[in-house]
C-alpha cells in the first residue's frame, strides 16, 4: 500500500488547480471488479454513417455485398469526416435509417451488416518501424483508419494531428472524470504498453517535445500500470505521467490543459494555437493499432454499468453492436431497468430503445434502476445563491446565462460567452432549485446555431438575388444596345441615300430595303431574292421594274389569282 501511495504521490511536476468543479459520487467501483471482457459476436451490426463530428460518411458498398473484417464500407465525405469499416466479416443486409444513439431519438442512415461468424480479416499492411515513414504518411494512415476522438465529441483525430501549427506538448488524457465510466481506467490497467506505444507514435507525428499523460488520483492501479509501462519503454525521458486530485470535470480538454500547464485556451481558440494537442488514451491505442498493425477502428472498450445489471464491467465491443446484446451479456434485469443512458450521468443522454448500436464515441452504457436515477424533481425558482458560478469550470456566469436563455436574449447570451460552456453539468449538479441549467444552454446554443445558419443562407440568397438582377439588367442592356445599333445603322444608310439622291424624298426603311434588295440582286446576278415585302413596298418595287418585267410579273400574279379561285374546280 505504501509503495502504491508513493507511486501516486511521486509526481514532482507543478500542477494548477481547476477553476470550479464538483465532487459527484463516483460509482466507478462497480465496473472495475473484473477484467475487460468480451461479448459473443452479434448476428447483426448496425453502423450509423455519422459516428463523428462533421459530415456523415458515404457508403461504398451495396446491399448484398460480402465484406471482410476491416474492409472499408463507407468513405469520408469532406474534410471533417471519417471513414467506416466493417467490424466483422459478413453480408451487407441493408442500408437504411435505424435508431442511432442521439438525444433526439431519431433514425439516421445506417449500414446493417449480417455477420457470418468467420471473422475473416481483410489484408492488413503492417509496419515494422514507423519512424521510417514521414509523419504525413502516418497521419494519412490514421485518417484512413477512421479514428475519431474516443473520449468525447468524436472529432476526427487526423484533423487534430495535421493542424499545420507547431506543436510543443502532447497531452494524453487518462482523466476519465465522469462518474460510472471506467473504460479508460481499465484500458490503462490492461493495455498500458499499447497506450505508451500509441503516445510515442502521436508524439512523432506531431513533433512534440514533451508528452504529458494526465490521470486523476482515484485510479491508483492505472497509474501504477502506466508508470511501470513507461519505465520499461524507450521514451521514458520524453514522457511524464502527471497525477492530480480528482475533481469533476478535470477531463475536459481546456480544463486538463489548465491543470497540467497553467495555460488557459482563449475563447474561440483551439489548444493547437497554444502548441498543445490532446488525445484520449483510447485514441492512442487506436492510433497504435492503425499505424503499426494496419487495423482500422472497429472496436472499443465500453463500460456496462448500472444497478440493473448483474455483472457490470468493461467489455471490448465491435462498433455497431446493439445495446441489448451487450446488456443481456451483462445480465440485464428487465424489470429493474428504469433509464438507459448512453455516456455518463453528467453529460450523457437517456435513450428510449434497447436496439441502439454502440458507436466510436460510446464509452459507457448505464442501465440504471428507477431509484438510481430518479426522475428530476420539479425545478424551483432561482434563489440567486451563486453556487453555479462557483462550480463552473469555464468561469462563466451560469445564472446570467439562465436568465438570458429564459428570455431568449441571444445577444446577451453571446455576450456572456455561452459557447465557452462545455455542458459539463456542474452548475445543474449544485443548483439547490434543481433547475435544468444545461438544457437551457443546449437549447439556446441550438437556436443560435440555427439563426446563424439562416443568416449565412440569407446572405447567400441576397448575393444570388443581386447577381440575378445584375444578369437580367445586363441582358436587357445588351438587347437595348443591339436595338440602338440597328437604329443607328438604318439612320446611317438613310443619310447615305440622302447624300446620293438629294432630290428623292422617301420613307427611310423602305428605301433602305430597296437598296439592300438591289445590292443583293446585283450580287446574285439575276437571281431574284426572296424577300417578304409589304404591299406598298411591292408596289414601289413594281413601279421601278422595266416594262418587260412588269408584264411578266402581272401575268404571274393573275395566274396565281386564277389558280386560287379555281382550286375547287381543279380538284373536280
Amino acid at each position, binding site marked *: 500500500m505504501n509503495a502504491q501511495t508513493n507511486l501516486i504521490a511521486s509526481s514532482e511536476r507543478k500542477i494548477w488547480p481547476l477553476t470550479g468543479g464538483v465532487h459527484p459520487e463516483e460509482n466507478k467501483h462497480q465496473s472495475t471488479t473484473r477484467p475487460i471482457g468480451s461479448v459473443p459476436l452479434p448476428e447483426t451490426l448496425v453502423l450509423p454513417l455519422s459516428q463523428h463530428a462533421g459530415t456523415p460518411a458515404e457508403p461504398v458498398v451495396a446491399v448484398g455485398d460480402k465484406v471482410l473484417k476491416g474492409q472499408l464500407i463507407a468513405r469520408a465525405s469532406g474534410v471533417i469526416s471519417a471513414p467506416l469499416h466493417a467490424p466483422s466479416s459478413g453480408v451487407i443486409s441493408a442500408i437504411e435509417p435505424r435508431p442511432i444513439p442521439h438525444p433526439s431519438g431519431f433514425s439516421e442512415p445506417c449500414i446493417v451488416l449480417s455477420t457470418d461468424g468467420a471473422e475473416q480479416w481483410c489484408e492488413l499492411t503492417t509496419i515494422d518501424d514507423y519512424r521510417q515513414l514521414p509523419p504525413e504518411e502516418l497521419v494519412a494512415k490514421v485518417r484512413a483508419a477512421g479514428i475519431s476522438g474516443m473520449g468525447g465529441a468524436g472529432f476526427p483525430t487526423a484533423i487534430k494531428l495535421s493542424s499545420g501549427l507547431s506543436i510543443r506538448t502532447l497531452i494524453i488524457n487518462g482523466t476519465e472524470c465522469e462518474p460510472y465510466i471506467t473504460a479508460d481506467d481499465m484500458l490503462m490497467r490492461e493495455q498500458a504498453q499499447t497506450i505508451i506505444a500509441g503516445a510515442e507514435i502521436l508524439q512523432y507525428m506531431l513533433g512534440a517535445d514533451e508528452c504529458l499523460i494526465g490521470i486523476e488520483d482515484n485510479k491508483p492501479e492505472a497509474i501504477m500500470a502506466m508508470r511501470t509501462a513507461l519505465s520499461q519503454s524507450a521514451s521514458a525521458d520524453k514522457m511524464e505521467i502527471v497525477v492530480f486530485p480528482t475533481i469533476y470535470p478535470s477531463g475536459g480538454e481546456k480544463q486538463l490543459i489548465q491543470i497540467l500547464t497553467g495555460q488557459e485556451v482563449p475563447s474561440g481558440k483551439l489548444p493547437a494555437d497554444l502548441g498543445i494537442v490532446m488525445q484520449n488514451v483510447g485514441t492512442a491505442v487506436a492510433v497504435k493499432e492503425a499505424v503499426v498493425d494496419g487495423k482500422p477502428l472497429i472496436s472499443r472498450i465500453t463500460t456496462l454499468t448500472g444497478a440493473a445489471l448483474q455483472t457490470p464491467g468493461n467489455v471490448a465491443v465491435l462498433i455497431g453492436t446493439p445495446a441489448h446484446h451487450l446488456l443481456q451479456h451483462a445480465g440485464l434485469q428487465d424489470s429493474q431497468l428504469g433509464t438507459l443512458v448512453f455516456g455518463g450521468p453528467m453529460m450523457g443522454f437517456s435513450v428510449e430503445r434497447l436496439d441502439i448500436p454502440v458507436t466510436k464515441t460510446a464509452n459507457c452504457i448505464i442501465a440504471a434502476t428507477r431509484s438510481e436515477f430518479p426522475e428530476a424533481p420539479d*425545478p424551483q425558482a432561482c434563489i440567486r445563491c451563486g453556487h453555479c458560478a462557483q462550480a463552473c469550470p469555464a468561469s462563466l456566469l451560469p445564472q446570467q446565462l439562465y436568465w438570458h436563455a429564459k428570455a*431568449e436574449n441571444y445577444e446577451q447570451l453571446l455576450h456572456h460567452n455561452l459557447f465557452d460552456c462545455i455542458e459539463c453539468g456542474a452548475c445543474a449538479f449544485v443548483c439547490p432549485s434543481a433547475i435544468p441549467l444545461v438544457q437551457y444552454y443546449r*437549447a*439556446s446554443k441550438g437556436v443560435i446555431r440555427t439563426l446563424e445558419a439562416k443568416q449565412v443562407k*440569407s*446572405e447567400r*440568397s441576397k448575393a444570388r438575388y443581386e447577381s440575378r438582377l445584375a444578369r437580367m439588367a445586363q441582358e436587357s442592356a445588351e438587347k437595348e444596345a443591339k436595338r440602338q445599333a440597328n437604329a443607328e445603322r438604318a439612320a446611317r444608310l438613310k443619310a447615305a441615300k440622302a447624300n446620293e439622291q438629294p432630290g428623292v424624298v422617301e420613307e427611310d426603311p423602305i428605301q433602305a430595303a430597296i437598296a439592300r434588295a438591289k445590292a443583293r440582286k446585283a450580287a446574285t446576278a439575276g437571281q431574284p431574292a426572296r424577300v417578304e415585302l409589304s404591299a406598298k413596298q411591292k408596289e414601289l418595287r413594281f413601279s421601278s421594274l422595266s416594262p418587260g418585267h412588269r408584264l411578266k410579273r402581272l401575268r404571274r400574279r393573275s395566274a396565281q389569282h386564277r389558280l386560287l379561285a379555281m382550286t375547287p374546280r381543279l380538284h373536280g
Partner: protein
Amino acid sequence: MEIVLYAVGALLLLAVLFGAILGFASIHFKVEGNPIVDQINEILPQTQCGQCGYPGCRPYAEAIANGDAINKCPPGGQATVNALADLLDMEPQTLDAGADEVPVTRIAYIREAECIGCTKCLQACPVDAILGAAKQMHTVLADECTGCDLCVDPCPVECIEMRPVAVTARTWSWPLPSSDALIATDRRGQML
C-alpha cells in the same frame, strides 16, 4: 457698444467657420444611398418571396424606410418584426399574416416525372435555385431554395410542391425546458 460689435463679430465668424465645415462635410462625407435601408435589408430573410407586396426584400426595406408597416414579412416571422421594431425604435407589432409565428421552413420540390421542361419556373425563381433547360427535366437546388413558392404558380402542369424541411439528428436541438414558474409561489397557485 463696442462689446456688442465684438460679440456679433465673433458669432458671425463662428457661423462662417461652422458653415464652411458643414459645407465641406456635406460634399466630402456624403453618404450614398440610405444606410437605414441596408440595415433593414440585413434583417429581412432574403427569401425574395414578394409576400409583402414588393418585388423583393430590398424594395420592401426601402418601403419600410419610407414609412411602410414592419409586419408584412411572413417568412421572417415575429422574430423579424421584433428585430425591425428594435432597429427602428418602434412598438413591436404582431405579424400581419396571423398566428403562425414560427414559420415552418419549406423548400420547393419538383416531381420530376411530371415536369415538361417549360422553363417557366426558372424564370420565376428569384435566386436561380432551379436547374434545367427547355424540354429538359428541371430540379430544385435544395441548398439554395429560399422557400418563396414563386415557382409554384407559373408551373403549367402543377408538378411543383412546397415540402417542409425534415429535422435530422444534425439539425435537431434540445428544446427549452418548459417551466413558467418565475417565483416559488407561482407553483403553489397552480396546485390550488
